[in-house]
């Protein structure tokens, strides 16, 4: 065991690094942070390993944990709050899901902070594949609906709507499909973004990811130079399609955006009704 020790009375921490520093490992950190019963820790670690949530390499996770620990409020009255937070963070770090549900974290009298409860409630207790999430960044403020979207792209609204309708028919369940009325589609809420972050496995690696950042600035300049609309690979079909490309086709990015497809139909219809 390392020489450091947490103040188990829950008093405010002093120097996080000195207490977390040294040749420590994750189980000890988890154990110390959680102050859980010793017999429960091996189960937790085994669970982490089995679900590949146990982060590797350790040093990277340890430094991450430092940051997490610094976000814990200084006056923590319940160590179970910290435990809950760490569990959520572990899951978040691997971008998977939480391990335990709220009930299993709540012993008699333990109070979980509302944000922890919220996080736990919004995550599943079942395991799943390690899906590294793509991130959209760089929101543009000059687009709020489909009409703006079409104007900014410099593409006719008919072409844009045709693309949306085709997507809706092929990819959305019947109850979520977009309306196919042009006037309603024009007011569909749209948020336009300029950058996508895609985690891609590094060459000949199984756990290390490179981040690809395709950008799509439309007609806007990128860093005082010309516009940038990158080429990307898109999985467009099955592996027996497109010869050597095996169902993956290069495509030029035209726009990156978010839109609401479920309730949007109602909102759009309502706004249209009010405008009439």
């Amino acid at each position, binding site marked *: 065991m390392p020489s450091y020790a947490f103040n188990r009375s829950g008093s405010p921490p002093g120097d996080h690094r000195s207490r977390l520093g040294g040749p420590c490992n994750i189980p000890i950190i988890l154990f110390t942070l959680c102050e859980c019963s010793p017999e429960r820790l091996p189960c937790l670690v085994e669970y982490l390993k089995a679900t590949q949530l146990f982060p590797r390499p350790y040093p990277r996770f340890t430094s991450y944990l430092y940051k997490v620990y610094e976000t814990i409020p200084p006056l923590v009255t319940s160590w179970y709050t910290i435990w809950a937070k760490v569990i959520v963070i572990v899951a978040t770090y691997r971008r998977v899901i939480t391990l335990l549900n709220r009930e299993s974290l709540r012993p008699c009298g333990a109070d979980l902070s509302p944000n922890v409860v919220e996080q736990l409630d919004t995550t599943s207790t079942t395991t799943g594949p390690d899906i590294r999430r*793509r991130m*959209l960044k760089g929101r543009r403020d000059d687009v709020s609906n489909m009409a703006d979207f079409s104007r900014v*792209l410099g*593409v006719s609204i008919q*072409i*844009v709507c*045709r*693309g*949306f309708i*085709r*997507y809706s028919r092929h*990819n959305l369940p019947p109850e979520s499909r977009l309306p196919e009325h042009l006037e309603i589609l024009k007011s569909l809420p749209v948020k336009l973004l300029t950058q*996508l972050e*895609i985690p*891609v496995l590094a*060459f000949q690696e199984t756990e290390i990811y*490179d981040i*690809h*950042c*395709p950008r*799509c600035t439309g007609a806007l300049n990128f860093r005082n130079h010309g516009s940038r609309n*990158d*080429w*990307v*690979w*898109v*999985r*467009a079909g099955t592996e027996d399609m*497109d*010869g*050597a*490309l095996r169902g*993956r*086709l*290069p*495509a*030029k*990015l*035209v*726009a*990156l*955006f*978010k*839109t*609401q*497809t479920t309730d949007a139909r109602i909102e759009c219809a309502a706004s249209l009704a009010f405008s009439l």
Partner: protein
Amino acid sequence: MRRLAGVQFVRGVNSGRISDVHSLVTIQMKEDAREITVVDIGTIIGLAHLIPVGERRWIVNSRIDKRTFNEVY
């Protein structure tokens, strides 16, 4: 909230078969280049490296990873 992308697809020359000359696939822009296809961003799997070889034609560099390419060139 759905996270989507508008893209313009290309089509593979010679049905996407590799060339006898350079052993790479050549692509070209479709006739109706203004057509936009909406896709989920989950189907975008990474940046593509294309080498222009003429009017609306490109060779797909699928042979070496970009890091190696940047180190060599």
